[in-house]
């Protein structure tokens, strides 16, 4: 019984520390970095993501992320993807997800918030905005340097 109580306390602390995390890196291949404010953090499996983070992959990089509403997003090589807005209420399933693919390729599977209210998830690109009504889709933004 004591062991059980101690474990609960430990989980409680972990929960507090991770409260700001909106997603978790589940797949990281090659060069994957997170730009958070002025800092660049190398991303590995298990790295937590927060609102306003930017995921940047190199020529050999790709990354897969699960978000707290069960939506999944992956980015391919040479990609820049920012989490402009993210909120999700686990009780009501209301939320808002605005991602921004500045460059590269993205695949995504929508989660609980889109099931609850269509169009709560949006992906911006430099030339258009996409509303997601579910469930699986892909987006490519050409590298502007090639134009």
């Amino acid at each position, binding site marked *: 019984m004591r062991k059980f109580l101690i*474990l609960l306390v*430990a*989980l409680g602390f*972990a929960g507090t520390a991770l409260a700001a995390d909106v997603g*978790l890196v*589940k*797949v990281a*291949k090659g060069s994957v970095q997170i730009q958070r404010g002025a800092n660049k953090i190398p991303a590995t*499996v*298990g790295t937590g993501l927060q609102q306003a983070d930017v995921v940047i992959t190199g020529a050999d990089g*790709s*990354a*897969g*992320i*699960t978000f707290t509403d*069960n939506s*999944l997003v*992956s*980015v*391919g*090589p040479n*990609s820049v993807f920012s989490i402009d807005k993210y909120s999700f209420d686990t009780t009501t399933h209301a939320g808002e997800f605005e991602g921004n693919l500045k460059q590269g*390729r*993205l*695949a*995504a*599977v*929508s989660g609980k918030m889109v099931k609850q209210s269509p*169009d709560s998830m949006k992906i911006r*690109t*430099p*030339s*258009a*905005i*996409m*509303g*997601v*009504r*579910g*469930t*699986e*889709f*892909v*987006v*490519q*933004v*050409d590298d*502007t340097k090639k*134009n």
Partner: protein
Amino acid sequence: MVRHLWVVAAAFIAAGCACAPVTPALFAVVPAADGHIGRIVVTPNGGEPKLIDTKYGAERIRADGKVENVTLTETEVQATFGTVMDALPGRPATYTLYFLEGKDELTPESKVELDRVFADLRHRPLPDIAVIGHTDTRGGLEYNDTLSRARAERMREMLVGLGIPEERIMVAGRGKRELLVPTEDNVSEARNRRVEINVR
């Protein structure tokens, strides 16, 4: 007034074609593993929203600003998006396993099913797991709360035995509060003696 509106509309059309160079983009719907076809709405900057709801249906925005609605082939989608689609994490899944009456021991059928759950979990590098234990309505509230948690704890031990870090597994017991098959109180019902394993 009407004439004025026409002029405005014409000006918009002219701007749409006059083609300030834009960053090209491609949006496409891909079928889910179960064949479900989704829906997206693409709105080019300064343009009209367009619903796309067909298999590999796509909208392409060209560098000259022109917008095309096309249907891609599976081969084209694989060629362009294969790498990025491979990086998608495993889909969330829910498994239900059943227990012997009054015990925290799985039924023989569920012991077999457990191998399938383990096989799934091996493919998830960093799973988030919630194990929720349940009981049938036989016995009192407190007895069933304890039993349901024992079932969830037992399942956690098995998952830890598989090599999953303990801190990735949340356990809870719901007692007889959340019946899969609604029954009167004090009814033995095999389908209610279960754990749900939610994996992400």
